[in-house]
Every structure is written in C-alpha cells, then in structure tokens.
C-alpha cells in the first residue's frame, strides 16, 4: 500500500464517484435549512409571548390547556420552571419555564435563550424574522415542488417503486441493526427513507405552512370559517407547534443518519453533488 500508484488502483475499485443530487436540489436544500432554523427559533420566541396551547376556536372556552409552560414559587423563595402537559405538571427548571439568560441569571421564560431568535425576549423582532424566513421557505418550497414534478425527481427518487414495496420489512430490520446499504443500493433511497421524505415533503411541510396561515386574521377572512376544519384558530396554533416538533424530530434522525452513514461523503453529495459509492471488498 506504500506504492501511491497501487493505492490509486485500489481506491478506484473501492470508490465509484456518482452524481447524487442535482444543483437545484442542493441549492434548495440549503435554503431550506436556513429558513427552517430561523422559523423554528423565531417561532419559539413568538411562542414564549403566550406559552400555552389550547384546542378550539378561542383560548378561553372553559377547557384546560393542552400544554402550559410557566414559572412558580417552590415555597422556599426560589422560582422553578413548570411544564404542564395534559394536566400533568413536571418541574423543568433550567430548560422550560425558568432558565439562564445570556447574563447567566435565571429568568422566567418558556423556551431558553439559546433556543430562541432573538435570544432576549423580543416578540416584534421574532415576528420580523419569522415572516421574512416564511416567505423564503414558501417560495423555495413552491419552486421545489415545481422542480420535483417537472424533473421527475419525485417520481424517480422519492415515490416508492415496485421493488420498494416488497422490501419494507427488510429495510426496517436493516435500520434497527444500523446496517446501511452499500454499492449499487446506496445510489437510491431505501423504502423507509422514501416514505419518510414523502410524509415530510407532502404532508408535514405543507401542513405547517397551512397552520401558520390559519393564524392570520386576514387570511381567515378570505375563506371565513376554513380554520374550523382543524377545530379553530387555537387548534391550528397547537398543530403548528406540534408539526414543527415533528419536523425537529425528522431533522434529528436525518442528521443522525447523515453522520453514521458517512458524514463527509453525504455532506459533499449535498454540496458538490459527488457521492462515492463504496463497494464492499470481497475477501
């Protein structure tokens, strides 16, 4: 292996460069990453202005909230953070309800400063960031949908095909055992990946936008009563929040898989498009 020439030959056999992501997909992916994180963090700052989730047309309908984050006195003079989920209260000091601000002092706030944009309590600025990123997110999303259909990206790469249908069980076992496809199989998404991307692209992302629009008094007036389809404006606000956290869960799994299946190779394929297919060496 000390002979550089021989090493090249071995590498050529083991790694086969493959053009994985087209330029439009790469650009739109990173625009989406930016918009998503701005939307998420400014959204948490907006949530902090009223850290309660209700179900129904209004917040005051006699029913208890589904989620309520607050601060309370623990009886000995210090303040604790509390999170109430469906009637069960948990102490969440340090993370939810009460956390350390940028000056290191404990302060009463629902989500902590490191998770919100801006860090300090600042609703109007968070709204400015949120709507700015929302426009980028929606325009990027529309272009992506148009491209996905026109270029057959959805049909070719995302929608499960005949062979995928039979491989759901095997793919599930492979994931559970952290066994990842090599060689030819690594050139396309596996069936669980395809299903996940389908749910994210065609269900969660449009739904989170729709539930955002459902909170706008003006957009409500264009089709009066349409928000009642999901139970009313406060239900829409709750769904907006829940879907956002489903997307956070997706991003968590996505980034985890990117790391464990070859961080640099995956990252490069989303930057330059090049992905090395590693063929398993036979003994």
């Amino acid at each position: 292996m000390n002979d550089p020439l021989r090493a090249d030959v071995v590498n050529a056999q083991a790694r086969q460069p493959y053009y994985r992501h087209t330029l439009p997909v790469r650009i739109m992916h990173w625009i989406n990453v930016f918009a998503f994180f701005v939307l998420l963090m400014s959204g948490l700052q907006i949530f902090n202005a009223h850290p309660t989730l209700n179900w129904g047309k209004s917040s005051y309908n006699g029913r208890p909230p589904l989620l309520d984050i607050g601060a309370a006195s623990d009886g000995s003079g210090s303040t604790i953070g509390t999170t109430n989920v469906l009637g069960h209260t948990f102490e969440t000091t340090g993370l939810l309800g009460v956390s350390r601000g940028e000056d290191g002092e404990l302060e009463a706030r629902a989500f902590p400063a490191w998770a919100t944009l801006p860090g300090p309590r600042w609703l109007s600025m968070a709204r400015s960031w949120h709507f700015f990123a929302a426009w980028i997110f929606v325009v990027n999303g529309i272009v992506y949908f148009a491209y996905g259909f026109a270029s057959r990206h959805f049909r070719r790469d995302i929608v499960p095909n005949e062979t995928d249908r039979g491989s759901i069980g095997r793919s599930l076992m492979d994931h559970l055992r952290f066994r990842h496809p090599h060689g030819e199989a690594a050139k396309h998404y596996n069936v669980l990946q395809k299903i996940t991307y389908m749910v994210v692209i065609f269900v969660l992302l449009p739904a989170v936008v729709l539930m955002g629009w459902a909170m706008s008094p003006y957009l409500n007036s264009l089709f009066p009563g349409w928000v009642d389809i999901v139970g009313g404006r406060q239900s829409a606000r709750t769904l907006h929040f829940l879907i956002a956290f489903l997307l956070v869960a997706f991003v968590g799994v996505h980034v985890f898989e990117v790391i464990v299946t070859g961080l640099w190779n995956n990252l490069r394929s989303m930057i330059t498009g090049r992905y090395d297919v590693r063929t398993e060496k036979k003994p």
Partner: protein
Amino acid sequence: MSTTSRRQFLLQSVSLLGSLLLAGCDRLSHSQWFTRMLAVAESLNKGVRKGTDNRLSMAQEFSEADLSPSFRSNGTARPASAEYQRLAAGGFTDYRLEVGGLVTTPLSLSLDEIRALPSRTQITRHDCVEGWSAIGKWKGARLSALLQKAQPSSAARYVVFRCADSLEEGGDPYYESIDMDDAYHEQTLLAYELNDSILPVENGAPLRLRVERQLGYKMAKYVMRIELVDKLDDIGGGHGGYWEDQGYQWYAGI
C-alpha cells in the same frame, strides 16, 4: 485524541459555533440595514392583501355558544389621566369624540349621537399578537357612517385614533392608524357594547375600535379623537401606532 475527548471537542465546537451564530443574529437584529431587509416581508404581506382584497372579505363570525366566558383585558385596564377619570365618573355624559384632520366637516359627537349612527352587531374572534384568542359580541357605530358625516378630503389616506391611555406612567398616549380600505370595511366599528352590556372600562370604554381582519393591538381602546391624515410620519414615532413605534408591524393582518 481519545474518542471521548474528540466527542467533547466536537460538542464544544458545535456549541461555540451555535453561540457565535446566535450572537451574530442578535447583532443583526439591532442593525438598521438588516431590519429593513426583514421588513420586506411586511411589504409582501401588504401586497398579498392588496392583491386579494376588495374591502369585501369578511372576518369569521361566530355563534353565542362560542363566546368566551369573560373577555380578557390586555394592555391598559384603567387609564390614569385625571380627564379620563372625570369622564368615567360621570358615566361619559361629558365625553365628546372629536373628528378632525383632512375632513370637510369636523365633528364633536356625544355618545348618544354615536349610538344614533348606523350600527352593527358581530360576534368575532379577537386575536392577540401574543397568540391567544377570545371571542366576544360587539355592537358599535360603523366607522364608515361616521366618515360619511365628516366627509374626508380626497387627500386622506389614513384614519388615526388618539386614545386616553398610556401604557407607561407619564408615557406617550396610545394611538393607532388604519388605511381607508379597513376604515370603510363593513365590520370596522367604534364599539360601545361588549356581550350585550355597556363596554367596560377594562375593555376600552367608552369607545373601542374593532378592525376584525387584523390583530388586537390595532384595535385601540379609549378612543378620544379621530384624525384623517395623508401620512403617518409626523405622528408619534412615525410608524403609525404605539406598538408600531416599538417595532411591531403596521399591517397586522398576519
């Protein structure tokens, strides 16, 4: 480097990068060019409204069954000024709503005169910028009827509402502004009744603006004077309202 120290190093790098990004974003929030860029979104939102609105789209109206048990009071609950206290003590019999600015006929109306104007009753949802909603039944004079009496000049582009309250002690009084599309909208009222009773002080007595297709902060309470103007630059901080001067969007339809 051992695996644990490498992992620690990676985690520390990620958290350092994160705090640098956060600090950067907070600096951007304080810079003028960047906040101006963010404001592009507000122009686009206004554009959506202009492109879809013909003054006809109506805010959703609800049934009695949807009414919130009590209507939440936000902001000022009782204006501190001596003048307001005197008017309130007298049951607002001495109250006069002044209408001026770019109008042909300036007005000074008593509550009885306002109650005699064409009115509207509506059960609507009040959406606060903070995120909560409350449903209430409002009765009030249609602002369009008042404007027909005052006859705005053709130069008038905004209706400004001057209020009796200030949110900080001794601070600037609350004010708000809307454009002519919202001013002439069927659901835009100067409300004097809430849930079939005289409008309580904590909800804005004697008169409170209802602009149902926008957020709660647009709906000025304790309205004392209405002015028609051609621009907002010379009023208050120049952004068209108390909260707008603190950085909130003038167009609050979203």
